[in-house]
């Protein structure tokens, strides 16, 4: 085993892990506020990637500059999805139904993407995508660093919004208890819609970096969404901090296992880790203690 390779894997794991953390935070925010599991998150990441792709190929707009367009676009897409379908969900089977409904949405998007962009995998290109530099003997790929920086900036913005703004107070109240939040006059419906928009908007940034680091087509979304779901369950559903930590942890573990035992086992490692954690803590790392007796 090569120590340098191991350190490289660990370092890249943390850098890319932050990006998964960002995308998973959007997912867990939506779950925490609305009790909705948005399995369309995976395909929306791909939509973000394709949007960046279209902007850069057809209009020559830089990938990072393009985010100024793609992030608001996906925010609107999120709001439309929420208003059209998810607002109708209610009752005890809301969460389960939300999976099927968002999956249906994701199928429609997947089919449309296949027709528009074909199923041939593409990758985002820019002059800096394959640049890297050396610090202290270690290679740092520019795009990983940029992704890390982007994730940190966006997560900080999200946290600022949650903890420093009036809207954030409403969101945190809804996270804690929707019924009580509604009682003290918070428009939970509006908070939900906006949170869903935000949860989806972060996929634009995630998708751009994702698309620049790997080739993708619409069906790549299955791998993405299964990772993201694993992350939020591992972190504890509805826990923002849990999603961030689990995001970094999973990719980190996956990369390290990949170097030690071979790439084949790296994906497997996520799921095995998840099941081990759930055996010990059924509510995930930072999940609210469920008082259920069973």
């Amino acid at each position: 085993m090569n120590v340098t390779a191991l350190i490289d894997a660990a370092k890249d794991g943390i850098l890319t892990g932050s990006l998964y953390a960002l995308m998973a935070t959007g997912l867990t925010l939506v779950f925490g506020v609305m009790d909705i599991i948005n399995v369309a998150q995976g395909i929306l990441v791909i939509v973000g990637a394709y949007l960046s792709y279209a902007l850069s190929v057809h209009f020559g707009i830089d990938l990072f500059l393009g985010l100024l367009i793609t992030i608001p676009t996906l925010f609107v897409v999120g709001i439309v999805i929420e208003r059209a379908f998810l607002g109708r969900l209610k009752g005890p089977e809301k969460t389960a139904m939300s999976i099927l409904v968002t999956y249906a949405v994701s199928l429609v998007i997947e089919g449309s993407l296949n027709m528009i962009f074909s199923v041939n995998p593409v990758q985002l290109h820019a002059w800096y995508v394959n640049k890297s530099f050396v610090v202290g003997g270690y290679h740092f790929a520019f795009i990983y660093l940029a992704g890390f920086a982007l994730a940190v900036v966006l997560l900080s913005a999200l946290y600022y919004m949650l903890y420093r703004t009036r809207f954030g107070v409403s969101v945190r109240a809804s996270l804690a208890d929707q019924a009580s939040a509604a009682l003290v006059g918070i428009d939970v419906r509006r908070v939900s819609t906006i949170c869903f928009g935000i949860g989806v908007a972060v996929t634009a940034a995630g998708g751009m970096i994702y698309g620049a680091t790997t080739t993708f087509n619409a069906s790549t979304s299955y791998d993405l969404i299964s990772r993201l779901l694993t992350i939020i369950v591992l972190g504890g559903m509805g826990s923002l901090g849990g999603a961030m930590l689990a995001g970094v942890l999973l990719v980190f573990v996956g990369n390290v296992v990949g170097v030690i035992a071979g790439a084949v086992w790296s994906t497997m490692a996520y799921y095995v880790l998840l099941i081990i954690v759930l055996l010990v803590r059924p509510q995930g790392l930072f999940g609210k203690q469920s008082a259920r007796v069973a």
Partner: protein
Amino acid sequence: MLKTKRLWWVLALGVFAGFPLVVTNPSYQTIAFYSLLYMACAASWNMFSGYSGYIALGSGVFYGSGAFTMALISIHTHMAPGAAMFWLVPVGGLVAAAFAVPLGWIGLRVRRHTFVVITIAFFFIFQNAAINFSFTGGTAGLNLPFITWGFSYYDLPFYYVALGLVIFIVILSAAVRRSRFGLQLMAIRDDEDRALGLGVKVAAVKLTGFTMSAFTIGMAGAVYAMFLGQIYPQFAFDPMFDLSIAMMAFFGGMGTLVGPLVGALILESAQQYLTVNFSNGSLYLILLGGLFLIVFMFMPQGIVVYVRDTVTKKAAREKAAVASIDLAMAEGSET
């Protein structure tokens, strides 16, 4: 009422039994075969998830295990290609059920929405394992003993075996619905903690239901492998399968007997038809997703329940009955 119901079942059975004798075009027979296979799977899925409300999205694990059981045993015992291989169908079911016990034991300890995600995780573990282990043939797949009972009616035996499987599952499903066990599953769906407080052994009941549904899905997987004659891990363990059967069950009406059958019949035959005639998978994705969303928006309980409730004017009847008792109670006390 009960009599007309039975009549409908017999009529439907007659149509299905006679179909391949009337429609002899092999490509339509193939469509019909796949529709039956998915009817079997959607009804099996419904037997646990529809009744208990625990949405499982990793049923591909059982479909795939059934398929690989069929492939591996028939290859390694050098079975003569032919009808004798059908004996492996229940074996495929048993292997799937054997996997279901530990998976269910782990997965059913957590809350409902976490269960969904855990079943997805199980699925990807199995898919990964199947692709990477050598005994599954890896991405190159496995070739089963090649059956040659004349191409022109190649589908026929499979069609009737699939029909038999559907009948078996419908009977089993109906039996579950009528049993105390089925009642307990439905009580769990409506309010699990309350059911526990009324003496229902929720953990055991859930695990039993989960295993039963795995058994019948495993059988369907075995038939699928035998029909194809070759299997690949990436198709035997297909994430689309998991979600498709759940959507089919919902589409028709989750938790009802007929709903999943109707849902699977409509959606699977549509998919097969589109694939055969337009070889366009993307169109199917849009159609499946779009149809589902339309049904969700206008008939949130599924087609079958919607039609039934509309025909019997259920809402109005209920309202009247409830009001009359409320009134009687108010009056009764005055006297």
